[in-house]
């Protein structure tokens, strides 16, 4: 069945370093979403990408959707301790209501 794979599983960085997480789908996606979950919290929507090759920025966060719409990435420039958490990508499976999540990348930031 369709899967959304994320790498790496864990990433530990020094504050100020950059961070990137990658998401790959076994099939073409109509859209991809990114969520952030703080420790002990619930996932919070960050962004949705729809177009092939789309790039969106939110302050220090840059999101990309691949040309083939099968992969995506989230890049954080100059990480801060507030960036700590797990970042998930999610893509629709059977229609836009059946959203499947990747296993997430857990980011820790050392001050």
């Amino acid at each position, binding site marked *: 069945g369709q899967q959304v794979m*994320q790498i790496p599983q864990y990433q530990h960085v020094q504050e100020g370093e950059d961070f990137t997480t990658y998401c790959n789908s076994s099939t073409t996606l109509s*859209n991809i*979403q990114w*969520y952030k979950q703080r420790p002990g*919290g*619930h*996932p*919070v*929507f960050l962004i*949705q990408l729809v177009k092939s090759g789309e790039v969106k920025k939110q302050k220090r966060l840059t999101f990309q959707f691949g040309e083939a719409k099968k992969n995506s990435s989230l890049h954080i420039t100059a990480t801060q301790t507030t960036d700590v958490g797990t970042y*998930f990508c*999610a893509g629709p499976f059977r229609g*836009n*209501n*059946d*959203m*499947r*999540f*990747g*296993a*997430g990348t*857990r980011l820790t930031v050392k001050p």
Partner: protein
Amino acid sequence: NAGVTQTPKFRILKIGQSMTLQCTQDMNHNYMYWYRQDPGMGLKLIYYSVGAGITDKGEVPNGYNVSRSTTEDFPLRLELAAPSQTSVYFCACSSPTGNTIYFGEGSWLTVV
């Protein structure tokens, strides 16, 4: 505007017991979901609903049941609790026009 409200927040069940996780939303969204998240893992879709009276299975529906009698409520029923159902359960909703999924704060369930 509370968003998505789940109860209870914490619960310990014995093997074989039954319980219902309650979920209600005041966002007037048609779509609702139940996900489970095992420790250190991603979210797995259990069931979802596109409107009152309509439910559909997700990735991991076995051992669970749902109903959707109103737009606001989407309870999740565990009939015979098993240790494998120890997890954090998230209820969520979204609108048909925007795909953003809004999550509740989660229900921590332990089956012993």
